[in-house]
């Protein structure tokens, strides 16, 4: 229904430039998640799409049309705020209906729309209640219904689940994914929780300090991180990384790519350490292994080791990542890759 495009967009607040020369294409009908650490500019980006805080320079295009001079209410976007921003003096029905009334939708049509949407989100029994009498989850649904009823081409959501408890959050995640499938409109979802991003997104846009670090499917982001930042941001726990000791480069591996053993093996990268802490998470256990040069987090699916036990960390060659001095990942077929692999092997042999 609508793609979103940023062209050389810069956004400043007074003297501080938050986003500079950003180019981004958000595909039509996809569930795109903007993720990144706090303060990296996710909300700012979303608000530029909505037109609430227009860009300082550059252009924002919705459905190929430059909307720089289009008012928020005319852009065909709906935004769900983190704090829901429900109109507190209006009943649930009036909340959902407000946008329709402003768009001069007829009374019969409004009634029909409100009833079908409230049935979809499970609010039918609460239409005449005031928001103050609703639970957090129900308010969330009011905010969703209010956005959905306008049939927007673009659905924007700014950390909509962060005020819910863990269980409800997981439940709502699934509902939102289903909602997206049903509506087929473009979803742009902001979160700082990478687990949420991985589980919901078609495309993840990972940001840091106003710059896009990587824009790819969750799979690609996880298996082929562009750079050190992405590698360290994604995964629980994130990728282990350490300086390689050559050309300012680093190496890394995922916590679940390593095997722990009591005796030495012939793994490509092998490191001897002691288990410092052990976190038992149910199906998996996370060990914190410390040696005299590195510390690593290792994820195991069997709980075989105890704290203070000496162990060997072993990583096969194909699970190792290398990053250059510019923090970019060195591809497996790139010229330097084999040299770094050999160098790491020799390091360990010493």
């Amino acid at each position: 229904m609508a793609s979103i495009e940023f062209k050389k967009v810069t956004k400043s607040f007074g003297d501080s430039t938050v986003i500079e020369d950003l180019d981004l294409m958000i595909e039509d009908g996809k569930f795109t998640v903007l993720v990144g650490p706090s303060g990296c500019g996710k909300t700012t980006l979303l608000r530029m799409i909505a037109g609430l805080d227009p860009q300082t320079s550059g252009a924002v295009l919705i459905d190929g049309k430059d909307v720089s001079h289009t008012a928020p209410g005319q852009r065909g976007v709906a935004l769900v705020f983190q704090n829901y921003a429900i109109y507190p003096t209006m009943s649930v029905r009036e909340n959902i209906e407000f946008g329709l009334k402003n768009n001069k939708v007829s009374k019969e049509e409004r009634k029909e729309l409100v009833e079908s949407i409230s049935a979809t989100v499970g609010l039918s029994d609460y239409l005449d209640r005031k928001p103050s009498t609703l639970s957090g989850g129900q308010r969330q649904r009011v905010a969703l219904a209010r956005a959905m009823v306008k049939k927007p081409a673009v659905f924007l959501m700014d950390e909509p689940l962060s005020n819910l408890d863990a269980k409800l959050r997981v439940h709502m995640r699934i509902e939102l994914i289903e909602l997206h499938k049903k509506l087929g409109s473009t979803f742009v979802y902001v979160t700082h929780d990478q687990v949420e991003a991985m589980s919901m997104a078609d495309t993840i846009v990972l940001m840091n300090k106003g710059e896009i670090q990587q824009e790819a499917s969750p799979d690609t982001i996880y298996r082929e991180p562009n750079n050190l930042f992405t590698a360290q941001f994604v995964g629980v726990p994130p990728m282990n990384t350490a300086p390689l000791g050559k050309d300012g480069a680093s190496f890394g591996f995922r916590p679940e790519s390593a095997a722990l053993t009591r005796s030495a093996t012939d793994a490509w990268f092998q490191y001897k350490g002691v288990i410092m802490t052990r976190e038992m998470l149910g199906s998996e256990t996370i060990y914190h292994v410390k040696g005299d040069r590195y510390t690593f987090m290792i994820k195991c699916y069997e709980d075989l080791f105890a704290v203070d036990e000496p162990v060997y960390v072993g990583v096969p060659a194909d699970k190792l990542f290398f990053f250059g001095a510019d923090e970019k990942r060195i591809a497996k077929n790139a010229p330097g890759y084999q040299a770094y692999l050999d160098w790491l092997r020799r390091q360990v042999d010493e």
Partner: protein
Amino acid sequence: MHSKWRLIQSGTSYTLKGVVLLIFIFPFLWMIMTALKTFPETMVFPPRLLPAMPQWSNFVTAMQSGPFVTYTINSVIVTVSIIILQMVIMIPAAYAFAKYKFKGQPLLFALVLLAFMIPGQVTFIPVYLMLADWGIIHTLLPQILPFAANAFGIFLLRQYFMQVPTEIIESARLDNASEFKIMLKIMVPMSVPALATIGLFSFVSHWNDYFWPLVMTDSMNVRPLTIGIAMLRETEGISNWNIIMAGNVVLVLPILLAYLFSSKQIVKAFVYSGIK
């Protein structure tokens, strides 16, 4: 042992509250009772609180001693017009000061604050001269126009509006609501307690105003109730307290009623704005 102590405590508390209540209510009670006495009863010594026989005719006498219908109509027109005008000006002004950023905003707001610090006694002569110049002294306008903008109201309402989350306003913008609609359908309903408080203060101070209309009016047909009742003393003689008090009861009755109807909202306003 414990319950006895508690009894003494609550007893003391109620007694003290009763004393305070009496101090506040007594003047009103005395006014109402005097209004119902005969003239000799107001003079007896020692004074008695209750009249032997309520003299309702005192009210008729008071109201017939001058053009009180005109006075009342004038008071109502002036007070209601002031409140409506103030709302019309105050709501957009407070909204702009609370939620907009524009050039010169701090300066303009400082001007508003300045306006509410200048007492009317300082400005009445220039205002009178100006209005006389406009040739509207023999109308009700001089009692209305100078109060069209309520600086204190703008200040109070702005504080109230600032507590409305900006996201709610932005949601409304995304819902394609005009700024006018946002004020009317979102800001105003969320600020009913503040508006009721400001309205009541305005009502009381203008309904009771004596000084300003005294200066600004020169004929019977534009004078409000306050002046009419003050003039009872001239028409009825200085000591006719029963009649004068009957006039005063008529004067304060609307205020008591207004307070009774809006007291709940007022308490809310003070709780919400953190003044209490």
